[in-house]
């Protein structure tokens, strides 16, 4: 990165500062390292929220900047979670098996593996380790898979879809179908990933038993904040230069970009794969904090929520996506957690647990109609930037020869 990048993108510095202050603040209020005002479960919620902010950045890159409404990025998020979850579960089960082995002779590697497999897969009635678990014993290998599996899947899928020039709503449907297929596949018991039970106990990090959850949660918050900060930097770097110009051009007029000599498909594939990897990294950090992952997490609805966050936050700018994801997911936690007070209307009591999705859907519609810039539009309001009012009509050759102010007056 050249000097001048930060000075040209002041929002990056502001964002990193706010993130740092937030992380330090939570640390000093946490149970492990501070006054204990924020409970461990709240720290976990905040850490998870940071991961959701990271995937929102990925969504903003692919949707807000490149104009591809992908309804499949939560699949990559989930895959990332599964990849890291496999190691967590395997290594932890191995510890348990070793500590409970009472035999005189040490176990042979084969015996050890069988014992682990029985432990993990007893729940789905299997006792053999499926082939996909063959690398599960190695942390570096699984971490590499966090990037590789979603990356390769996105690359192959994107290559097929973009090569045949599927665009717009058809592409959205295609990505949604991919997500659905993947989650249905994982629901099967013989998929080798424990079917609908998913992977659990992920909050226990092998080798760190001595460290309590209160400290672990703060560590994960730090790592999530670091990943979010780096993700933001990478995304800002991508959109700031000519690459950003090209992908915004693709969003606005794909054919024109092609006639400028840019291979539109190549760019789409690049962004799609990159954002899939970012989503996977976010997922790999999210699920150890959540403790459990199952195929329901990858259902299409999750990816639709992701689009709603980015839309409410304000797509087409990175901090908008972050604000949207943080705001909506935290408010959603509050409403659906049963902590929101019921609204008594006299004739009917609104229970927010039931009505939250209605409220969310309604605000999505309202934001789309009346505030297309989302929450981030408030920043413009503060800075006094107002878009010209043109009533949505494009200016034809006759009116268009006027400047906008003239035409409106």
């Amino acid at each position, binding site marked *: 990165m*050249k000097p001048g990048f930060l000075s040209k993108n002041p929002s990056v510095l502001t964002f990193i500062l706010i993130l740092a202050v937030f992380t330090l603040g939570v640390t000093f209020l946490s149970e492990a390292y501070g006054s204990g005002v924020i409970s461990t479960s709240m720290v976990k919620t905040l850490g998870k929220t940071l991961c959701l902010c990271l995937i929102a950045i990925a969504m903003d890159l692919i949707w807000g900047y490149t104009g591809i409404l992908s309804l499949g990025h939560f699949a990559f998020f989930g895959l990332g979670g599964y990849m890291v979850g496999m190691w967590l579960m395997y290594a932890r089960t191995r510890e348990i098996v070793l500590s409970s082995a009472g035999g005189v002779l040490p176990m042979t590697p084969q015996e050890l593996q069988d014992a682990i497999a029985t432990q993990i897969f007893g729940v789905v009635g299997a006792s053999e380790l499926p082939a996909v678990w063959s690398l599960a014993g190695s942390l570096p290998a699984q971490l590499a898979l966090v990037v590789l599996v979603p990356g390769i899947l996105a690359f192959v899928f994107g290559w097929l879809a973009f090569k045949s020039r599927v665009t717009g709503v058809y592409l959205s449907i295609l990505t949604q179908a991919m997500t659905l297929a993947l989650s249905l596949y994982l629901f099967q018991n013989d998929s080798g990933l424990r079917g609908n039970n998913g992977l659990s106990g992920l909050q226990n990090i092998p080798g760190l038993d001595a460290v309590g959850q209160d400290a672990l949660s703060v560590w994960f918050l730090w790592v999530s904040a670091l990943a979010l900060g780096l993700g933001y930097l990478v995304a800002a770097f*991508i959109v700031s*230069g*000519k*690459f950003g*110009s*090209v992908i*915004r*051009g693709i969003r*606005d*007029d794909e*054919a*024109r970009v*092609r*006639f*400028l*000599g*840019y*291979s*539109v498909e*190549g*760019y789409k594939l*690049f962004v799609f794969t990159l954002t899939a990897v970012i989503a996977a990294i976010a997922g790999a950090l999210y699920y150890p904090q959540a403790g459990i992952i199952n195929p329901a997490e990858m259902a299409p609805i999750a990816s639709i929520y992701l689009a709603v966050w980015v839309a409410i936050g304000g797509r087409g700018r990175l901090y908008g996506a972050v604000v949207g994801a943080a705001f909506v997911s935290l408010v959603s936690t509050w409403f659906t957690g049963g902590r929101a007070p019921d609204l008594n209307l006299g004739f009917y009591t609104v229970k927010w647990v039931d009505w939250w999705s209605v409220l969310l859907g309604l605000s999505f519609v309202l934001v789309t109609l009346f505030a297309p810039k989302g929450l981030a539009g408030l920043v413009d309001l503060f800075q006094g930037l107002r878009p*010209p009012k043109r009533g949505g009509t494009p*200016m*034809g*050759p*006759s009116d*268009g*020869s*006027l*400047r*906008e102010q003239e035409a409106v007056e």
Partner: protein
Amino acid sequence: MSQLLEVSGISVTFDGFRAINNLSFSIAEAELRAVIGPNGAGKTTFMDIVTGKTRPNEGRVLWGERSVNLLRMNEAQIARAGIGRKFQRPTVFEDQSVAENLMMALKANRSPWKVLFWRAAALDHARVEALATEVGLGDQLERKSGELSHGQKQWLEIGMLLAQEPRLLLVDEPAAGMTLAEREQTTALLVELAKTRAVVVVEHDMEFVRRLNCKVTVLHEGSVLAEGSLDHVTANPQVIEVYLGR
């Protein structure tokens, strides 16, 4: 004279309708050519074929000294080979500034990795400024191009074409929506450009074509009806019949 672009015997059928019928056309380097014809004569389809947007059912399109077959290439590759296209409606990226529009069009490596790490050097900034000045937008560099007037957008698009440094320029109705003064400017620019590269202008407006003062190709029902100077083709009885009705 060696030919830069050679189109021979192309035909295109859309749902049984023959938009282009055994059309042959060629243009030399540094030549200005006007293509005229009534609506539906196949002018735009012809451009679509050359730029790779439409695939012909038969025929050949050969390009350059090495006679590369353009039909095997996609739009982006053809554009990189040196064919620039100006659309009828000005198509600039309205959400981006004039400078960004020009910077994107500037001749440079187009592969995603190269573009990702590409940063404008002083030379590039100077080039963008020079181009903007050339098309009369020198003081508008930081404005969003969506705010420009229709005529200014036309000029910006021409500037973007120049930035691409194409060897062949295809220009679709450049004078549409321009004032008289702007038209004269456009004519002068096109004539000037044709000194160093091939330029094909598709136009309805006979006055405009007359001012270009170049060889004219008349298209009708997807094939060439007549070719020659404007006076020559307008004297052609078939052309008169096509233009003035039967």
